[in-house]
């Protein structure tokens, strides 16, 4: 946690509205970190090391800086509000699974920032290799906690190091959907995330996020252009039009939609970990169950939402 980060008025407000208070000890990062059993190997030789980049490419300092830069956006722009933050385990591995939306999805940084600030545990964001192909962006992504969503990576993070990993099973199918399809969950991949959690013997914590859809809604997409650029989609988004005066920067600045995050009850699996494979039907059942659970929570949250901007 950034010691220099003084909570502003809005920050205290954002924290006050957390409905279920987090146990006091969970706020101390040292407590949460102390239970991580194996330190990443690269960190054991601290005296020789010149940087704090761990084996995953994450740097606590870079992550700290990213939180300081993103903090105002989190507190004042999206005014992120959590519900059920205490359901995020304060120790042990867990796979966080959330819906994914917005051309540049705002849900990932909001979830990672919130958990790191409130619970003091690092969160590794699993994503496909698109970032790793890009110069600069790929390095920044890795330094701030991005890890390739490879089964071996997930297993080592969750099983051997008992970390928190965040995954969006919809992938780009979720982020690339049109505004008219908002809050309609796409297919949850092929259930790989369930299989990973089963193999690692960790619970899945489903998370429902409302607001990211409206922060960067896709109005129009050009497929040939996307193919040419090697991107999953090349959209015109609402914020591009709204912030046209800012030029290219306007494409990056999301609309100030209120983001609400609800953590659902963790799902544990009654199977032996470390198996080479699991029953396909069991995996698909659990995957569909979790997807339905998040979909129901989203509809429930939308029913209560009075305003896109004020929640």
């Amino acid at each position, binding site marked *: 946690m950034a010691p220099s980060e003084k909570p502003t008025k809005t920050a205290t407000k954002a924290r006050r509205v957390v409905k279920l208070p987090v146990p006091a000890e969970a706020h101390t990062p040292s407590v949460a970190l102390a239970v991580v059993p194996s330190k990443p*190997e*690269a960190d*054991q*030789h601290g005296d*020789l*090391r*010149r*940087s704090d*980049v761990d*084996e*995953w*490419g994450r740097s606590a300092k870079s992550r700290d800086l990213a939180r300081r830069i993103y903090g105002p956006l989190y507190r004042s722009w999206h005014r992120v509000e959590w519900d059920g933050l205490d359901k995020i385990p304060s120790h042990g591995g867990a796979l966080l699974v959330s819906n994914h939306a917005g051309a540049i999805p705002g849900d990932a940084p909001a979830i990672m920032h919130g958990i790191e600030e409130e619970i003091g545990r690092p969160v590794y964001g699993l994503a496909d*290799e698109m970032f*790793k*192909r*890009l*110069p*600069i*962006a*790929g*390095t920044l992504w890795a330094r701030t906690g991005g*890890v*390739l969503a*490879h*089964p*071996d*990576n997930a297993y*080592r993070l969750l099983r051997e190091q008992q970390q928190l990993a965040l995954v969006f099973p919809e992938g780009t199918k979720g982020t690339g959907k049109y505004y008219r399809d908002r809050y309609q969950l796409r297919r949850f991949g092929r259930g790989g995330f369930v299989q990973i959690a089963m193999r690692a013997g960790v619970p899945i914590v489903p998370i429902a996020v409302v607001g990211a859809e409206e922060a960067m809604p896709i109005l129009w997409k050009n497929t040939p252009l996307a193919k040419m650029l090697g991107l999953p989609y090349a959209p015109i988004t609402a914020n591009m039009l709204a912030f046209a005066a800012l030029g290219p920067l306007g494409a990056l600045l999301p609309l100030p939609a209120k983001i609400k995050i609800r953590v659902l009850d963790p799902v544990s699996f009654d199977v032996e970990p470390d198996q080479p494979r699991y029953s396909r039907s069991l995996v698909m059942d659990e995957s569909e169950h979790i997807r339905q659970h998040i979909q129901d929570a989203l509809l429930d949250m939308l029913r209560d939402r009075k305003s896109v901007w004020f929640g």
Partner: protein
Amino acid sequence: MGKRVLITGLGTFWGSRLAQALEADPNVDVIVGLDRNAPDVPLARTEYVRSDESYSILSRIVKAARIDTIVHTFLVMDSTQMSSRQIHEINVIGTMNLFAAASASASTVRNVVVKSSTLVYGAHPKDPVWFSEETRRAAGPVQMVERSLLEVESYVRDFAVDNPQIVVAMLRFSNVLGPDITTPLAKALDLPLVPRMFGFDPRFQFVHETDVVRAILFVLEREIQGTFNVAGDGLLPWSEVAALCGKRTIPLSPWGLGLLSAPIRRLGIELPPELIDLLRHGRGVDNRRLKQRGFAYNFTSAETVTDFVGSLRVGAMTAATGAAYQYERDVEQFFRHSPAVVNPD
């Protein structure tokens, strides 16, 4: 009865290093070293045979010297050293002939160790952070050296399946650094400005040259079977490696490097394509399987780099003073076989 060892690539760094280490082992009776080039270190009892990789010579030597252990170190990992045709001849054809000779009828061979490389995993954005010995490459091989090493490994696997009575170990070594060995990576770190790929800062893993020799001796001694990654603990970002070496970096363009490689080579900077891939994506391998068999590394990745840095600093001073050893056939024959030489024992 002690071991009768055949080493391929005696003229290379690894072959001569291993021969020196094996000479100190009283359980090794005979050491025969093959190469086209003479060894450049003094050897007390290793027999050097100048030969190429052709089958007839290999099978005759194996038979005549009743070889029971083969250490295959003669695999080229650096594409700047020779043409792709030569690399193919040495790596693929040489391995094929060696195994053909070792599996001839009434062969006395019962233990084979092959020194492969983690190059066989490639370097790709879809790579996991740590490759285990079983992890498959994310994409097909593009670089010629990688392709030839994959072919070599398939010969090794076939040989192990066809000859279940022979103990076959294959060691995949990560990036080697050390005070004595010269690799493309060591050369890159010795440049006044260390090249890096613009916008990329991948993580590298290193293994110390002494740990390489120790690992080969370890599997030889215990007659361990199987495939093992050999690499130090921990991954270091390339920028940190350069910083540990006290060097500034110079960015290379991530696009169009193929076109730039010729002018870059003119400047005396040799960046093989497999190193360029590594500068973009890096590579980590899981070293726990060999550790589980009881092997302990002397150096982590960071310690390897630190030790290498020390030798970089004094390198300029020692290069001029150390008199290079030169193999002279007649002189060696005199020392080993002339009745005039008084053995200190």
